[in-house]
């Protein structure tokens, strides 16, 4: 039924993927050394500030992936768009990974900065909640005897869970948190401008990595679906 769309998708993916992969590698090649070696140390934090170049992009990607997942789920539920669901499903593990990376680097950073790896602070907890939501999405999708049922249930959960995104975003403003407030705000940029190029390189690298992996995973799903359809046709 939806084969044309999937076909278009496969074609597009085949074009985009190598470019994205190449760019991603370039970003990492330039970004990592600059971030970890050549960028200036912070006047307060010293070299530990370099964790930021992993932590912040990971945090943003954690949020971004959930956004994609929620949008994909919505269009799957509303327009029954199978590719949208595949994108949502493919984003979940990547998002969970970035979220975990953010949590881990945050804990590593917290040890020297706050004297403790973990506090039950709103920003930290809502991020942990995001991680659980990812887990819940994946677990729920797998928990049904019929795959469609799981897909739909998980899609509903993704939508309902998206209320968590603003909570994460604004948690530092709503509660007096240990955590840094946003770098970018109405008032302008609050870090040394020398830190921005490596930060953006890393953000770009992570983003491109996401694009590459999502395309790979969706392609795999499309092909699996094709194979299954073919098997059923042959069996019939």
């Amino acid at each position: 039924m939806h084969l044309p769309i999937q076909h278009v998708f496969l074609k597009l993916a085949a074009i985009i993927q190598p470019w994205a992969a190449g760019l991603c590698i370039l970003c990492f090649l330039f970004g990592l050394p600059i971030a970890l070696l050549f960028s200036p140390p912070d006047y307060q934090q010293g070299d530990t500030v370099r964790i930021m170049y992993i932590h912040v992009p990971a945090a943003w990607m954690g949020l971004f992936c959930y956004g994609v997942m929620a949008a994909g789920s919505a269009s799957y539920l509303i327009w029954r768009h199978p590719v949208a669901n595949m994108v949502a499903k493919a984003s979940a593990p990547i998002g969970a990974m970035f979220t975990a990376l953010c949590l881990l680097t945050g804990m590593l950073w917290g040890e020297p900065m706050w004297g403790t790896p973990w506090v039950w602070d709103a920003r930290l907890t809502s991020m942990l909640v995001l991680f659980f939501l990812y887990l819940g999405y994946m677990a729920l999708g797998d928990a049904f005897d019929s795959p469609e049922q799981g897909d739909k249930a998980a899609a509903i959960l993704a939508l309902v869970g998206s209320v968590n995104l603003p909570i994460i975003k604004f948690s530092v403003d709503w509660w007096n948190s240990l955590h840094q407030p946003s770098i970018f705000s109405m008032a302008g940029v609050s870090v040394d401008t020398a830190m921005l190029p490596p930060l953006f390189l890393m953000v770009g690298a992570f983003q491109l990595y996401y694009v590459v992996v999502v395309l790979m995973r969706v392609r795999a799903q499309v092909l699996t679906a094709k194979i299954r359809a073919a098997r059923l046709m042959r069996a019939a």
Partner: protein
Amino acid sequence: MNTFFILVGRDLRLSVRHRADTVMVAGFFAITVILFPFGIGPEPGVLERVGAGILWVTALLASLLSLDHLFSDDEQDGALDLLLTSPAAPTVVVAAKIIAHWLTTGLPLTLLAPVLGITLQMPSSSAAPMMTALLIGTPTLSLIGAVGAALTLGARRRGILMPLVVLPLYIPILIFGVGAIDTTGMGFDAGGLFAVLGGFLLIAAALCPWAAAAALKIASE
């Protein structure tokens, strides 16, 4: 609307008459209030400090555990099929069940809160903010929980899925709920926190019955 009251009435009757876990809630609170001073020891400073937290956590657990049966009892004996094929719209069925659930879990807790507060040695001035916070917050628990219960209805390993799905969404309510009580207790104005709780309730009321009804239709397949 009439249909709605018929459905609420039935669920209430069942939870009074039945061997239902919903009635357990009053017992559950009593237990908590008996057990915690035992477990924590009678030192007044400590108990008082954690009172609001204990109340809210209890509310969350009670809600979570009783929700497990919100739809599954009716599913087991076939009544859910009949309800979904009846003249009542699925959203109305879900909304009625949510209200009935709140009336048998959230409301008793809210009403008992002052008593529980005294037993947990909280200052009597905290009674009003406590009741207000619970009154606004507990319906949201029922609403969100119903979505979780419906989503996991046909699922395998449901026992572990329910908390995984529902709790992340409960945590904000817990934070604001406790915050509202404690802030008032410290003599500050907690209007903003109550407003946020109210906002959650409005959002949940607007979304959850539909989400749960949609999930229920999926589960019944």
